[in-house]
């Protein structure tokens, strides 16, 4: 196709879009709604992935100790921890330190702790992990080994709930793709209908162009471009709406989810945003082509 032909296709498409701007606006909004759903799910999963990644980097074991742990058992436990490649550092938290932390973190409950004859909080060792070497299955096995070690009352492992969170993120992602795919098919059909209406309005012109010997590409081109522009516009509307929604939610709800989530959260990066625009244009193209197939 020559540059003249491409310019002609865009000129004709823009003129046609303007001529039937009301139905085009509805079509753009339909595409925008579909992409908003898809983008919304994408935004949620991207942020969940970010949070999981951030929390994974800060993941740690908490190894709670029996009050009557012997010094030999402490030495053996420390030795076991120091030999493991995934262990980056360890910190001993005594019963007294645990009480101080409790009073600091839960001041409303601090009085209750003071009323008790004995400090019920156990001593523990907080083990910080090296994320690069923290293989999930190996750590699970290590946690079980620690549980069997003398003097250990319990082992809390952050990774378990992080994996559950990652699994939820995956579920959300697939739900989003499925729902988005259904809505995108509906969008393709909407665009095809609007472009067919445009084709119907221009049928005399198309017939004359055919008689003038215009190649099939020149007859179908404006219709495909019409779809492409509708899809692109729908994607941009979806991105703007998504960003507006993100700003509102960030102000109202992100703080509730904790500072770690708040600091990790952000809008869609360039890649997924560009993907939304490309998907929108692809949907529009497909709709335009469906309508253009009627020109033979």
């Amino acid at each position, binding site marked *: 196709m*020559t540059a003249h032909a491409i310019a002609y296709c865009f000129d004709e498409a823009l003129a046609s879009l303007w001529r039937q701007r009301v139905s085009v606006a509805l079509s753009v909004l339909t595409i925008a709604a579909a992409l908003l759903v898809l983008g919304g799910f994408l935004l949620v999963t991207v942020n969940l992935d970010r949070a999981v990644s951030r929390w994974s980097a800060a993941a740690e074991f908490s190894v709670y100790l029996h009050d009557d742990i012997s010094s030999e058992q402490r030495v053996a436990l420390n030795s076991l921890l120091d030999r493991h490649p995934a262990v980056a550092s360890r910190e001993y938290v005594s019963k007294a330190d645990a009480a101080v932390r409790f009073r600091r973190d839960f001041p409303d409950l601090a009085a209750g702790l003071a009323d008790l004859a004995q400090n019920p909080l156990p001593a523990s060792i907080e083990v910080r992990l090296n994320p690069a070497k923290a293989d999930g299955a190996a750590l699970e096995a290590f946690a079980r080994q620690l549980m069997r070690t003398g003097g250990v009352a319990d082992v809390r492992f952050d990774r378990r709930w992080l994996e559950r969170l990652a699994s939820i993120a995956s579920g959300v992602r697939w739900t989003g793709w499925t729902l988005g795919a259904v809505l995108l098919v509906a969008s393709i059909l909407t665009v095809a209908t609007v472009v067919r209406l445009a084709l119907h309005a221009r049928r005399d*012109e198309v017939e*004359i*162009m055919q008689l*003038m010997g*215009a*190649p099939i590409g*020149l007859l179908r081109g404006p219709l495909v471009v019409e779809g492409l522009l509708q899809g692109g516009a729908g994607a941009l509307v979806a991105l703007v709406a998504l960003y507006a929604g993100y700003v509102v939610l960030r102000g109202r709800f992100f703080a509730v989810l904790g500072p770690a989530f708040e600091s990790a959260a952000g809008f869609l990066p360039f890649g997924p945003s560009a993907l939304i625009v490309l998907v929108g244009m692809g949907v529009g193209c497909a709709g335009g082509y469906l309508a253009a197939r009627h020109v033979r």
Partner: protein
Amino acid sequence: MYGRGIYALRDVSLVVEKGEFVFLTGPSGAGKSTLLRLLLRQELATEGSVRVAGRDLAKLTPGQAQAYRRAVGFVFQDFKLIPTKSVLDNVGLVPRVLGATSVQQQRRTFQVLKWLGLQHRMNAYPLELSGGEQQRVAIARALVNEPALILADEPTGNLDPDLSLEIMNLFRDINARGTTVLVATHNRDLMRHVGRRAITLDHGHVVEAS
């Protein structure tokens, strides 16, 4: 042949020589327009063959068929102009879009419009023109690619007698330059005025070939 055994044209065997001016005449429904549609490859013959310059039109691919149409000029009774395009665009749109050299194409378009007395109307839109002017624009469009063959289906059907005569004189001038012209009409006065070979059709058959 149309469906259910109805023939639009039957046993038609015609040869039109290069550079000829031929009238197709006959009553409404005789098959004049069908014959022109076959020649423009808007329809394909269900039996027999239609050959132009030695090429069987039925054997053209869609791309070749469009290229063939670009080499044939056509003029219709209802002008078939694009109302949203200016006279200039109606005449030169397809060659320009297909990448004909811009200056060369503009010169050719202007020459044709000037020859047809439309140079002062080239920025007007079809609905701003009189019927005679619209038909001259359609003729300009047919001529702009310098076709070897021009097909005209009742080109004066919507025009008054004076304008009809003017248009027919234009076709005679075009033919004088070497272009083969086929005009379908049932206006016998105009045929007499031009005085060329006439083929009379009736019920899809050639009944007279003078």
